[in-house]
C-alpha cells in the first residue's frame, strides 16, 4: 500500500486488454454512462493485476457481475473500465458433507443452486433472475431477502472471502470452517461495501440442508391495520415461519390476484410438519374478516422468487425503488403514511415484517421522483434508493442519511483504495 507506479491511462488501457477479453462497452452502462473499456477476466490473479494497473494510471473501475443489481449506487464520479467477472465462475471447494462451499464471484445463483440441489443443500436466497445474479454481486450489495427471518442473511452464512486490492494483492480472510475467530472479520468488511474497498473474487459459505417441503400461507385482510396485527401476532409466536411479509393491495393483485392487504408466511421443513405449521399459522393470523389460502410447494417457490423482483436493485426506468428500515411494530404506520402521500403513484409496496424493512416502488416523472426521494430519505431508521434512473439520482446520495462512523469508513477507503480506483463516488458519502 505504498510506492506508486505512474502510468499513462492509454498505456494502462492497452495493457489491460492483454489481460483478458475486451467486450462491448455499451453492455456495461452504469446510470447512463458507458465505460471506455469492458474487460472479461478469468482468474483472481489477473483481477489483481488489472486493479494495480488501473490504480497506477488513475483509472476508475467498476466490478461487474450479472449487472442485475447495478441500480444500487450513486452516479459514478468517473468510469473508465468495467471488469466483467462472469468468467470467474468456478466452484472451487465443495465438500457436501461439510455443508460448506467456496465459489468464485462470477458464479450465478442459478448455477450454484443447481449444484447444491444435487446434494439436497441450499443457500436460502431468492431471486427473480437467478441466471443473472452473481455471488459477488450479492456479497457486494449485501441485499437480502425475507427468508433472513428464518435462516439469517448471507451476512450470517459467509465464512471466508478473497478480495483483489488496488495494490495488486489478493487478500483472504476467514476460511472453510463454520466457526472461526482467527484474525479480523474481512468478510463483513466487504459485505455490502459495494466493491468500494476491494473486488470480491471468491466467497465461502456455510450451507443449509434443503427443506423437504414448502408451503406459503396467504391471508388477505380488509385493512392494513388488520394485516399488520396478524403479522405481528405471527412474529411473536413460536411458529417460526422462514419469511413473513405483508403486501400492499397493488402488489398482492400483481402476484396473487387479490387486491387486498395480504400477509404471506413461508413454511419450510418436513412435509407433515409444514402442513401442520401452515394450519397453525392460519389460526394465529386470520380474523373473522380475512380470507386465507395455502400455496403448494411449486407455487411457493415461484411466488417468493418473483416477489424478490420487487425487493432488488435491478436498474429501473421511469420508477424509483426505495428500501426503508423500520421497526416491525412501526411498519404499519409507515405504510399508512406512504399510502396517504403517494396513493396511486405507489406501484408496489412490500413490508418485510420478519426483518423490519419496507420496499416501495414509486412511479412518476424525474421531477416527481426527485421530490419523492427528498421526503422518503427522511423516513424510518434508514432509507436507501435501491434503483432509479440516473437523472433522479443526480446530486443526491442514494444511501440517504449518513450513519455515524462515516469518518471511519472514509479512512478505510483511504487505506485500501488510496487512488480511488474502485467504484469511485458510487458508495455511501460518495466514497
Amino acid at each position: 500500500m505504498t510506492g506508486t507506479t505512474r502510468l499513462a491511462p492509454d498505456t494502462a488501457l492497452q495493457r489491460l486488454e492483454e489481460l483478458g477479453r475486451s467486450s462491448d462497452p455499451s453492455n456495461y452502462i452504469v446510470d447512463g454512462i458507458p465505460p471506455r473499456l469492458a474487460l472479461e477476466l478469468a482468474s483472481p490473479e489477473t483481477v489483481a493485476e488489472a486493479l494495480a494497473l488501473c490504480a497506477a494510471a488513475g483509472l476508475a473501475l467498476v466490478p461487474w457481475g450479472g449487472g442485475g443489481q447495478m441500480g444500487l449506487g450513486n452516479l459514478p464520479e468517473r468510469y473508465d473500465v468495467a471488469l466483467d467477472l462472469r468468467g470467474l465462475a468456478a466452484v472451487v471447494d465443495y465438500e457436501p458433507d461439510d455443508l460448506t462451499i467456496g465459489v468464485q464471484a462470477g458464479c450465478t445463483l442459478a448455477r450454484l443452486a443447481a449444484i447444491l440441489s444435487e446434494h439436497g443443500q441450499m443457500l436460502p436466497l431468492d431471486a427473480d433472475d437467478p441466471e443473472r445474479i452473481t455471488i459477488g454481486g450479492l456479497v457486494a450489495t449485501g441485499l437480502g431477502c425475507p427468508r433472513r427471518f428464518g435462516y439469517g442473511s448471507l451476512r450470517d452464512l459467509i465464512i471466508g472471502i478473497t478480495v483483489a486490492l488496488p495494490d495488486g494483492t489478493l487478500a483472504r480472510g476467514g476460511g472453510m470452517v463454520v466457526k472461526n475467530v482467527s484474525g479480523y472479520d474481512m468478510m463483513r468488511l466487504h459485505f455490502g461495501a459495494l466493491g468500494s474497498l476491494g473486488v470480491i473474487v471468491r466467497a465461502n459459505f456455510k450451507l443449509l440442508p434443503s427443506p423437504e417441503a414448502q408451503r406459503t400461507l396467504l391471508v388477505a385482510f380488509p385493512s392494513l391495520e388488520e394485516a399488520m396485527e396478524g403479522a405481528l401476532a405471527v412474529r411473536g409466536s413460536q411458529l417460526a415461519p422462514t419469511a413473513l411479509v405483508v403486501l400492499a393491495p397493488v402488489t398482492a393483485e400483481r402476484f396473487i390476484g387479490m387486491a387486498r392487504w395480504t400477509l404471506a408466511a413461508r413454511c419450510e421443513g418436513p412435509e407433515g410438519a409444514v402442513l401442520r405449521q401452515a394450519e397453525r399459522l392460519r389460526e394465529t393470523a386470520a380474523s373473522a374478516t380475512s380470507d386465507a389460502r395455502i400455496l403448494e410447494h411449486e407455487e411457493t417457490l415461484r411466488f417468493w422468487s418473483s416477489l424478490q423482483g420487487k425487493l432488488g436493485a435491478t436498474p429501473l426506468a421511469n420508477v424509483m425503488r426505495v428500501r426503508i428500515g423500520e421497526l416491525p411494530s412501526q411498519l404499519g404506520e409507515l405504510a399508512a403514511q406512504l399510502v396517504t402521500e403517494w396513493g396511486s403513484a405507489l406501484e408496489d409496496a412490500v413490508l418485510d415484517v420478519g426483518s423490519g424493512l419496507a420496499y416501495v416502488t414509486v412511479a412518476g416523472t424525474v421531477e416527481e421522483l426527485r421530490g419523492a426521494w427528498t421526503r422518503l430519505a427522511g423516513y424510518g431508521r434508514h432509507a436507501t434508493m435501491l434503483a432509479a434512473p440516473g437523472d433522479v439520482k443526480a446530486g443526491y446520495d442514494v444511501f440517504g442519511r449518513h450513519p455515524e462512523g462515516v469518518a471511519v469508513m472514509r479512512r478505510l477507503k483511504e487505506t485500501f483504495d488510496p487512488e480511488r480506483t474502485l467504484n469511485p463516488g458510487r458508495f455511501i458519502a460518495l466514497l
Partner: protein
Amino acid sequence: MDRAAIRTRLLEIVGPDGLLDDPDELLVYEYDASDEVFAGHHRPDFTVLPRTAEQVSAVVRLANEVGLPVIPRGAGTGLAGGALALRGGILIVLTRMNRILEVNERDGYAIVEPGVINLELSTALQPRGYFFAPDPASQRACTIGGNVGNNSGGPHCLKYGVTTNHILGLEVVLPDGERIWTGGPVPETPGVDLTGVLVGSEGTLGIVTKVMVRLTRLPEGVSVLLAAFPDIESASHATSAIIAAGVLPAALEMMDQLTIKAVEDAFHAGYPREAGAVLLVELDGLQEIVAENTGRVAELCRQHSAWEVRVARTKEERDLLWLGRKSAFGAMGRLAPNYYLVDTTVPRTKLPATMRRVEELSREYRLSIANVFHAGDGNLHPLVLFDRHRPGEVERVLECTTEILRYCVDVGGTLSGEHGIGFEKRDYMTLVFTTEDLCAMAGLKRSFDPRELFNPEKVLPTGFRCGEVALLRQQALAQRFGLEYV
C-alpha cells in the same frame, strides 16, 4: 505528563472508587483466564472501572494525549490472553457498566451495557419468552462485552450461530475517543458494516460501551439425547452422519472417556462410565419437527455403533444431561493440576481423522488429553493435562499443542473457533494467512487505530512488513508490464 499527573487526571474522570493503581490491587489484573505458565503476567499502569460511556471516552482521550496503551477488559475469562496489558497502560474494566437498558421483544432487540453477565441476560429474557443465543460455557461469569470482543460461541451456536450473528448494533468508543453507534435494530444499515468488523476484534479497534443484541424466541419444543459410543471415532462418524443427513440440532457436543470419568466422579450426572465417548444432542423447534428429528438422530447414532441412546423427557432430565457437559472444565482438576485448552476448528468430515491424530500426539508426547467439544461445528477442545512443576512438561505441552494446531490447519481447519487469537496465538497466524492477507488485516487495524494504542500486541503476529510486500509487488508488476517504476 508524569505518573502523578496522569493519576490525578484519571481520578477526575472516574472518581476515587473507579481507579486502582496500588500494586496489590492491580495483582488480579495482571492475569486473565489464559494460562499464566504460557501467557505470563503483565501489570497495567492503571486500572479504571468506569461507570459511563462518557468516562470511557474521557479515559481514552487522556490515554491518547499521554500516549499510553488502552486495554478493554470484561470479566477476564478470555483464554487467549486478550485482556492482558502487554505494554502496560490503562486497563479499562467494564464490569460496573452492567445495566440492561431496554428490552423490546416485539421488535426483537435489547440494549445492554457491556458488563452485563451473559447468563443474567438470558435469565432476564426467559420469562418474556426470549433468550440471547450465544452461550459460552463460561456464561455465569463472562460479559456481553467480552463475548463481542471475542465473537464467542457456545453449544447452541451450531443452530443459532455465534455472537456476531446476534449483535445488531454497538455503541463504541473509537481510539480517538469519539463515541459512535453502528448498526441498528433493523438490518441493511447503509455503509460499511462496522458492527460486523468490530465484533471479534478483541478490543483492538474500539471499546464497546453499549450492545444492541438480537433476541431469539424460545423454541416450542426441546429434546435432549445422550448416546454412548464404544470410541471417539464412531461418535465422530455419527456426528458427520447427523450433519450430512440434514438435521440441524441446536447443539451437538462430544465428550471422551477421560472427561466422562472426571465428570462422573465430580458431579454424578449419570453418564455411562464404560462409554468410550458420548454425544449430547439437543433438538429444538416446532413440536412436530423435534419429535421427528429425535427419532432420526437416535437411529443414526445406533447405525454408528451407539449401544445406548437415552432421551430426556422432562426439563429436569434435560438439565441433568447438560450438567455433565457444563461442568466438564471444572472437573478437570480431578485429573491433573493443570490443563491447556486448545481451541481449533476443522471441516466436519475431518473430525474422525483429527481425533485419531490427537490420540497419536497424546501418546507421542506422553501427555493425557481429554476431549470435550462442539462436535457439530467441528470445533475441537483438546485439553492437554499436565503438571507445571514437573520438569520439561510445560515445553512438551507447547510442542504438542503446536502439532495439534498444525495438523488442524493442514486439513483445512483454523487456529481458533471461538476463544480468539489474542496474545496466545498471534504468532501462529502465519500458519493460516499469507503476508498479503495479514497486510490487509493490518490496514483495517490502522484505519481505526493509527497510533496502535488499542490493545497492542494482539491478534496480528510480530515481524511482518507490509511496506516491503507492497514494494515487491509493485516492482514485480512493473517488470511484468514493462513499466517504469517511480
